[in-house]
């Protein structure tokens, strides 16, 4: 199986770091019947030059003539009834545009899965920081000052603020039981499985909210057109989600709504559904005022009011034979959906489908529920429910290994899925299964066995020395440990999601005779457009730089679906690859010969355009016939295939301060094919660091239903000093349904690290924490508990 290591094989590393010559405008050799490969090569990132020179224009960099600046008046209580809204008569309201729910021309809802979320509150307040009314003024400072001149009188009601409150259902905010959605997945005979088990281990694992913290805050500019339509441009992942939501809110036909993506400073899921809210607000102010309105959040507002990762409480009970073989798995996961349904059912579904981990088990029951609370709706965040359930399962496997006295690697290898195994939904894993391989590669690279032994010896020696009164220099009592975790991630939409999406992508010839990609998928930093040009270039036999990419603009690009779910390369890239093959065939039939590089392509294309007219090739998603999914019973092929990743985390813990620092991370991830190895490694390193942040640093703290630490001062994400060196191994075990064998890479790296961190802390300190993030306070409490327990 082909293997590729990015950073650590000497020759490759030196090559990469030596840098190639400036190649943005590199001209290719004149004749190349065998062109240089475009796929599998780390070509310069398409948007790189604009981003390093400051030329890239993000939404806040745009200024339209006559533009107003919008602000949002929000609720300060978690639940209540609006009684009165007063405008301070002493404030100068001249030139101020004020919009509330009565100004919405269509339906007052943010259309998504359900339509329970109002664009602006009418009477009921369901969560703190809910939008109530909107203000806009030509002077941004006047608009900001006006926020203090609006007084909203709300009669407070008892609020549900935690998963426990929601399940207790003393206060009912959704139906009779506060449960938005429940899934049950079952396979085999659970009772028989537990009866046959020699050992049964149970644990409850908790994880909190996590803020996506894209460095560019959310923002939109809305405009009303002379023809009575609206145009919205801004920071987003999914132009057609916004397009859909605006049609409903404004009662407009599709052709009167136009959504354009501006350069987007990170998304991570945080710009999947929430941009529909801001777009609606900006467009509403524009609709009312007739002038363009910019609505850009500052950091405080963004953290306080936009979506976050669902907190979860997950109970895992497993039965094992003496040698560790899994015979029964019982998972009960509860996620906090927040005040409205939004994306929670889909997040929950994906979390549930991955909850058994990448393990073979004949008897499984997975129950998953999303509950309602009076907190801002939680939404998409890289991993989409999987980090929560995989964290729980991996923490649990480490606990099982400890109880059985097994090496965690041995336990995982014994149970990891292999070709032909069956998942809890009855899906047979037919191809591209690499769980064992990524485990082995990670363990080998990290020096797993040697390091475990070494850290244990060193920790024991340090403890002996400290008992004898001999302390290390500085008097610090440090312990080191290594932990391992295994994860999997199904690429593309769950079940029949891709069938419902009916994604359509296209490739056209520009008048100048160059190919241009038409897709609604957005570049949000991950490198989507670079990868698109590579795959198209490979099939057309041209250089990636020769291929143009249209800006995602609903007036110009077809709906190729959202930029989410690790689907962009695998699904949309696949459609574009088919388009490119078809385009090449058309042009070669026309020219009656093979195409030969950029210049030749352009010559033939221009002749084609002159003689035959415009050329546009489209491809719509077709479900591979062997994939069968039953939405009602939750049986069948949940995903076309899975990506697999293993992570080994080495940490150092300070027993006196409770601080944990990450020394090194080793990870092997099977993503089918690295179209652009450098960008793939970028996804893996960046995603892994987000996972480490979630496990160690990032804690959203709440006070009466409001985010208390809505600042970068006290919501802590990892800095360059917190980040460890990464040793990334990319495993390429191709998937026949993906372009060039590619599977998804975007989310998998986020799924795995947390479990490894928990295991590493347990290895270093003996304290097993069942709640993340492992803050110093939590670790110290656990260490105290451990001492008392002895």
């Amino acid at each position, binding site marked *: 199986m082909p293997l590729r290591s990015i950073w650590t094989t000497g020759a490759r590393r030196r090559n990469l770091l030596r*840098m190639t010559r400036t190649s943005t405008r590199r001209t290719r050799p004149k004749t190349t019947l065998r062109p240089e490969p475009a796929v599998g090569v780390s070509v310069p990132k398409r948007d790189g030059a604009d981003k390093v020179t400051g030329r890239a224009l993000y939404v806040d960099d745009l200024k339209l003539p006559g533009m107003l600046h919008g602000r949002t008046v929000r609720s300060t209580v978690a639940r209540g009834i609006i009684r009165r809204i007063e405008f301070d008569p002493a404030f100068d309201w001249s030139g101020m545009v004020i919009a509330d729910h009565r100004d919405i021309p269509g339906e007052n809802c943010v259309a998504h899965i359900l339509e329970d979320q109002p664009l602006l509150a009418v009477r009921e307040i369901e969560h703190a920081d809910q939008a109530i009314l909107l203000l806009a003024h030509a002077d941004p400072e006047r608009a900001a000052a006006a926020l203090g001149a609006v007084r909203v009188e709300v009669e407070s009601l008892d609020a549900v603020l935690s998963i426990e409150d929601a399940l207790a259902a003393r206060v009912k905010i959704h139906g009779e039981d506060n449960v938005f959605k429940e899934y049950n997945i079952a396979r085999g005979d659970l009772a028989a499985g537990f009866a046959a088990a020699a050992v049964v281990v149970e644990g409850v694992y908790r994880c909190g909210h996590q803020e996506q913290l894209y460095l560019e805050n959310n923002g939109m500019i809305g405009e009303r057109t002379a023809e009575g339509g609206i145009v919205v441009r801004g920071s987003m992942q999914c132009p057609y989600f916004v397009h859909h939501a605006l049609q409903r809110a404004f009662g407009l036909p599709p052709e009167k709504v136009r959504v354009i993506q501006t350069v987007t400073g990170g998304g991570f899921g945080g710009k999947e559904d929430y941009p529909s809210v801001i777009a609606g607000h900006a467009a509403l102010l524009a609709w009312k005022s007739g002038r363009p309105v910019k609505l850009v959040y500052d950091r405080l507002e963004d953290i306080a009011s936009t979506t976050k990762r669902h907190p979860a409480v997950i109970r895992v009970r497993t039965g094992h034979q003496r040698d560790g073989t899994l015979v029964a798995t019982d998972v009960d996961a509860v996620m906090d959906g927040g005040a409205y349904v939004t994306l929670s059912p889909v997040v929950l579904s994906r979390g549930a489908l991955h909850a058994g981990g990448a393990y073979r088990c004949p008897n499984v029951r997975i129950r998953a529920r999303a509950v309602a609370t009076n907190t801002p709706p939680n939404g998409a965040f890289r991993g989409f429910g999987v980090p929560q359930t995989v964290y729980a399962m991996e923490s649990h496997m480490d606990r099982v290994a400890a109880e059985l006295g097994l090496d965690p690697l041995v336990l995982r290898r014994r149970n990891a899925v292999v070709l032909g195994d069956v998942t809890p939904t009855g899906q047979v894993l037919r191809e591209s299964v690499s769980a064992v391989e990524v485990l082995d590669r990670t363990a080998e690279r990290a020096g797993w066995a040697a390091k475990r032994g070494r850290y244990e010896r060193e920790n024991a020696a340090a403890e002996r020395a400290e008992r004898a009164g001999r302390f290390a220099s500085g008097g610090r009592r440090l312990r080191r440990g290594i932990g391992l975790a295994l994860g999997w991630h199904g690429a593309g939409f769950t079940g029949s999601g891709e069938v419902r999406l009916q994604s359509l992508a296209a490739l056209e010839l520009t008048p100048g005779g160059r190919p241009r990609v038409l897709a609604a998928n957005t570049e949000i930093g991950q490198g989507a457009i670079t990868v698109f040009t590579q795959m198209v270039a490979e099939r057309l036999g041209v250089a990636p730089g020769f291929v143009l990419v249209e800006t995602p603009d609903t007036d110009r690009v077809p709906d190729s679906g959202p930029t989410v779910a690790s689907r962009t390369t695998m699904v949309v890239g696949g459609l574009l690859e088919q388009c490119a093959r078809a385009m090449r065939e058309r042009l070669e039939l026309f020219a009656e010969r093979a195409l030969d590089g950029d210049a030749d392509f352009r010559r033939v294309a221009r002749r084609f355009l002159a003689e035959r007219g415009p050329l546009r090739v489209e491809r719509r998603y077709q479900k591979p016939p062997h994939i069968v999914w039953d939405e009602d019973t939750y049986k069948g092929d949940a995903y076309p295939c899975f990506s697999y990743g293993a992570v080994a985390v080495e940490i150092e813990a300070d027993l006196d301060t409770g601080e944990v620092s990450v020394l090194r991370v080793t990870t092997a991830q099977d993503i089918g094919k690295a179209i652009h190895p450098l960008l793939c490694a970028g996804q893996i390193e960046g995603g892994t660091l987000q996972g480490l942040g979630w496990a160690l640093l990032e804690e959203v703290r709440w006070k009466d239903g409001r985010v208390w630490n809505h600042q970068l001062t006290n919501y802590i994400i990892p800095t360059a000093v917190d980040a460890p060196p990464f040793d990334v191994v990319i495993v390429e075990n191709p998937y026949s349904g993906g372009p060039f064998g590619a599977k998804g890479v975007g989310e998998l790296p986020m799924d795995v690290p947390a479990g490894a961190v928990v295991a590493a802390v347990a290895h270093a300190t003996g304290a097993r924490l069942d709640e993340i993030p492992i803050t110093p306070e939590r670790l110290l409490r656990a260490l105290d508990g451990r001492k008392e327990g002895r």
Partner: protein
Amino acid sequence: MSAVLTLDFTVNGKRRRVRVPPMKRLLDVLREDCGLTGTKEGCGEGECGACTVLMDGVPVNSCLVPAVQVAGVKIVTVEGLAKGPALSVLQRAFVELGGTQCGICTPGILVTAHALLRRAKGRVPGDGEVRVALAGNLCRCTGYQMIVNAVRAAARETRASARKRVARAAKPVARAKTRPVRAKAKPARPKAKIARTTAIPVKTQPKAVPGRKRARR
């Protein structure tokens, strides 16, 4: 209305005069009054470093600097890192080595790294040194490793091209035997192709002599 201040300062080598309230943030002065939107706002409270600019050569968070403090100073923003249309070595390293993903933190990180390399004076800073220098610049995309790699690669490349320049400046003497007249009359053009685009001043850089073609390549 608050008082308005007439402010003279230099931005990227150009003199500017703006009339702004004294407490207006330098970030807004640059973005709104100077039209330089390359400098970004990430948090508005000096935590993320996206708004980093050089103030008399020192990296500062421009969201924390009031306009009144910049009278007479020299500001360098991301737009001023490249001389001319080509990318600087540091910028090119970021593009080619994965140092930029979503790009919103990139301007601030480039400015901070630029200052670091200038302080390093041709030395290649160590991994830890780069990380500490960049600790005030948050990035959510990359995991930092590729940023650190890019900064160090740029330092190496700058050093390598500086060495080449020194070597080339010395060459005319060595070549005197084969091409006595021209070589003596016109010393080799001192800058390599890459060096011409670099914005990192290197101490050993001799003065350019116009009118001679590149010595090699």
